[in-house]
Every structure is written in C-alpha cells, then in structure tokens.
C-alpha cells in the first residue's frame, strides 16, 4: 500500500471538513465538521506510524491523544452551544455576530 493513498485520502477528508466549517450555519454541524478534520489528522498519523514504524508506536499514541482531546473538546463545545442556544434561542451562527464593528 502506498503511503500517499492514505495521505491523499486524509487530505481530501480534511478539505471537506474545512468546507463544512466555513459553510454550515448550524453550530452543531460546524462542530461536526471539526470532528471530520480531526479524523483526517488521525488517519495521517496512523499512516505515518505505519510508514516509519517507531519502536514506541508514537503515531498511534499521538492518535489516541487526539481522540481523547477531541472528545473533551466536543463536550465543552456542545455545552457552549447549549448556553448560546439558551441565551439567543437560536443555534444559527450568523446570529452570533455581536463582536463586530
């Protein structure tokens, strides 16, 4: 298996995540796109680990940490989205543009 096939796949996934981040209006969907990007990163890490074969499986460890942190981030993120929804009665990110000129 080529390394590049995984890398390109991950790149495509990452790009899609970027698109979703920039386009989606619902805050939850934005977080979803972020998860997609993180996932792409994970693929990259594991692919490199398999390519380099470090003695301590560094890439995999890194991927574990990424997953963990992603989970924590989702928790907090959704809590925030919840608070925002309570305050503004809307989960639309366009309604959040208060800090503007």
């Amino acid at each position, binding site marked *: *298996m*080529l*390394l*590049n*096939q*995984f*890398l390109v*796949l991950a*790149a*495509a996934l*990452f*790009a*899609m*995540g*970027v*698109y*979703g981040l*920039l*386009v*989606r*209006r619902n*805050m*939850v*969907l934005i*977080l*979803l*796109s972020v*998860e*997609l990007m993180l*996932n792409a990163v*994970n693929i990259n890490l*594991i*692919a490199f*680990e*398999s*390519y380099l*074969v470090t003695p*301590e*499986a560094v890439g*995999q*460890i890194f991927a*574990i*940490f990424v*997953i*963990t*942190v*992603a*989970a*924590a981030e*989702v*928790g*907090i993120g*959704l*809590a*925030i*989205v*919840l608070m925002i*929804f309570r305050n503004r009665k809307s*989960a639309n990110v*366009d309604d959040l543009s208060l800090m503007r000129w």
Partner: protein
Amino acid sequence: MTFPDWISEPVNWVFLVIGLTVLVSGFRVVTSKNVVHSALFLVATLAGTAGLFLMLSAEFVAWVLVLVYIGAVVVLFLFGIMITRAPMGFDDSLDGDHKVAPAILSVSVFVMMAWASIDAFGTSLVASTGTATSTELIGESLLGRFVIPFEVVSFVLLAALIGGITIARRDLTPAEEEERAAV
C-alpha cells in the same frame, strides 16, 4: 509502482472500497440538508476510518475510535442536535449563502496538501508487518515514555468534565436559591 501493480494487490481493493465509503460519507456530512443525516454520515465516516486503521495494523486505536468517537461523541452530537431544537427534517437554510469562496479554499487546501505529500513521498510504501501493533506496546509507551502527556490528558478530561457541567448548568431562580440556602 505503477497503477496496475497497485491494483493487483488485494489489500488495495479493500482500501478502495473503504476509502470510497469514507470519502462519500465525508462529503455527505458537509453537504447534507438534514442535520441528523449529517451526524449519521459522520458515523459511517468514522467506521470507515476505523477500518483503515485496522488495515494499518493499528488495532487498539481503531477500537478506541469506535468506542469513543462513535459510541460517545456522536451520541453527544445527537443530544446536542435535539437540545438545540435543530430542524428535524430537510432544511434549506442549513448552509450559508456564500459557498464559492469556501469551496475554492477547501479545494486549494486539498491540492496543496496532496501535492505536498505526493511530492515528498512519491511512491513510498507503508510497511506491511502483517501483525498488528500489540496493545502491550501501546500500554508501555503510554505509561513509559508518554506518561506525562497521559496524566495531563487525564487532567484535560477532568477539566472538560467539570467545565462542561459548569457551563451548561441552569441558573437557579431566586426561589430555588433561597430554598438551597435554607437547607
């Protein structure tokens, strides 16, 4: 390696199938008009990703992914969708008005990264060991070389836990506060 060589290996067929699933699901995640559909497509993407991990001899990580991501994070997302009263059916207003610029941006990101990796690695091959990375090895690493990040991450989780609860807590009404104080 040329394409015929590559396609002749059975591993790559599996890869193709899983890869396509992942890509399509990922695309549907960001373009679906239904919120719940987006979440479910993410599940598919994650599942595909786990399959890819298995192919890359990362057993532990693959199952961790399934457990944590699909098992907890996506569920959390669905809860979030429910609580924020996201529209359940098809909704056109899910996407923003401007799609061209983000599309160009994301395409350029993809091109950039793809080109960089192809340019750097060419036709290098992944090491195919045949055996999966043992959990023992991962355990030793985690508690050996990476013990400090491990502990720190546990703190991160604790902070996220407490933080999440604190942020999402409902403010008590004055009556309830008095009740609490009296107790």
